[in-house]
């Protein structure tokens, strides 16, 4: 089975869960559809289409795919983890600390190795972006642990 087949299997499973969720919401009647009616319909359509995709993937699996690239690379996983950590820590640690660490980690993960440059670039970008958003655009980016300095 080709890569599309596995995506189809995942979507099939997800649509089955979605249909179950829709069912529990209440389908209602055709003349008076309930909250689960439309989600059930969409779940069924996704399920059917993913079955079509699986079938065509099995049919096409005789011609082997060559030179296939990886679905996800370590570099991308690291960048995604950095984004998630930013979301988790931004309120407590604050924008400065989070974005400073974020820039360093993402650039390191993508092959920028010169530490003096990394530190300088991260500091300049953090200050510039904070000033632009908080002062010029009046956003409220959290200071977090640096809030102590303000008080």
């Amino acid at each position, binding site marked *: 089975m080709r890569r599309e087949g596995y995506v189809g299997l995942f979507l099939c499973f997800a649509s089955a869960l979605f249909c179950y969720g829709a069912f529990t919401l209440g389908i209602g009647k055709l003349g008076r559809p309930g909250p689960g009616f*439309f989600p059930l319909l969409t779940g069924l359509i996704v399920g059917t289409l993913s079955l079509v995709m699986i079938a065509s993937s099995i049919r096409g699996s005789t011609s082997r795919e060559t030179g296939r690239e990886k679905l996800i690379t370590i570099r991308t996983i690291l960048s995604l983890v950095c984004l998630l950590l930013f979301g988790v820590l931004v309120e407590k640690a604050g924008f400065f600390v989070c974005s400073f660490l974020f820039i360093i980690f993402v650039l390191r993960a993508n092959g920028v190795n010169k530490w003096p440059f990394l530190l300088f670039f991260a500091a300049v970008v953090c200050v510039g972006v904070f000033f632009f958003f908080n002062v010029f655009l009046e956003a409220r980016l959290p200071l977090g642990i640096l809030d102590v300095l303000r008080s």
Partner: protein
Amino acid sequence: METVTNLLFGFSICLQPNNLLYCFVGVLLGTLVGVLPGISSASAIALLIPITIKIPPESSVIMLCGIMYGALYGGSTTSILVNVPGEAASVITSLDGYKMARQGRAGPALGISAMGSFIAGTISIFGLIFFARFLANFALRFGPPEYFSLIVFSFTILTLAMSGDIVKGAITAVLGVAMGTVGLDPTAGSHRFTFGWPSLMDGFGLVQVVIGLFGVSEVLLSLESYVKTEVYDKKIKGLFPTLRDWRDSIFPILRGTGIGFFMGIIPGIGVVLPTFLSYGLEKKISRHPEKFGKGFIAGVAAPEAANNAAAEGALIPMLSLGIPSGASTAILLGALMIYGIQPGPLLITESPTVFWGLVASLYIGNMMLLVLNLPLIGVWVRLLKLPYRLLSVLILLICLIGSYSISYMPADIIVMTIFGLVGYIAKKTDFELTPMVFGLVLGPMLETALRRSLILSKGSGTIFFTRPISLVFILLAMAVLAWPLFRKGMGKVRIARAL
């Protein structure tokens, strides 16, 4: 006479100093995102929505639209100079544009691209005024069944036009619709699929989803596969095309405008397909088809005019029917709803400042792009020489701030990251993402139209076939779906005859 008065009213709004500034910022940012690889106009519009919430709606719309057509100008610059189209709508431009640059004619290529876009943009404004009002008056006859059929028709067009694989296109579109069901049920008011998560009570945020799908995923992919490209280093001279260049280009520009504008009006077509069609037509009717692909100026002029005209044509169904044409217009539609404006037949009469201000801004914005962009080409070229890794981390940081500053909830960043991963995997497995955004925006409208239609007909599905306008849309949708099968069948017949 009334139209002239309204247009003058539009200019009086657009020429206010603050609106001029927003228009300028919009077209400048648009050009910037068009030039930069790894960020599309759709994600740029989504990123700016949090900032525009504080400013008047007409100013916001003027700025966000400026990004949309500014990106097309910027995209052509990179197509011509680097052979890397910043936008999908500029892919075809690179065929002849880059060849012209290699032959030392980058100046005329950039010049005709900007001037052709300006001519197309100006002509399309008059089309927009006429057709938007005509369509809005026509749409007043629409009830829930007509809206349901129209949305279904738009989905079929989009799925066919956007993706090579109709099944994959349909899956992403329906997934988008399914995502649109998360949050409050529009009729009963109960919560659906929220799992007690406060940030899901209002459904998936359009901004976070779009930033994730288009912004984050594009940067991640570009970081992975970015190859340093050769930037055109020579001094760009002679931006003004010669008389001969004009003779070769003027009719392709006019034909490109016509194709772009009328295809742009069809909901779901977008701006990419008209560029390919206009290029193909020019090649077919040209007395020198062999010149195409070898640095012929008509090969730059026609698609550039087509993409600009299509971008303005695409505003017609969005403004007068509330139906977007592609990712950018879908986000614009979402933005209008965030500002409390309901696009549709009543927009022109209920929000004249937004409609006429926008129409006038298209003219002013196109003029700004023409005056500004030609002298700024050197700046864009220098920008392309910046290391992409540094630019990408900046784009990611702006994506983070953009999704966080919508409601200052860290959960929004997590939603954005998840959709970044979804977009990344979707692109690697050749799933087109625009139908998903389309589905997310139109899903609630589709559900409301379907449920109201069923209540009206007491549960009978025949309501969609007994009302003439609805029937026409359903038949058109079926014809669109049958088209690939018909073509396949015809191909087999031709092969059989040849044998």
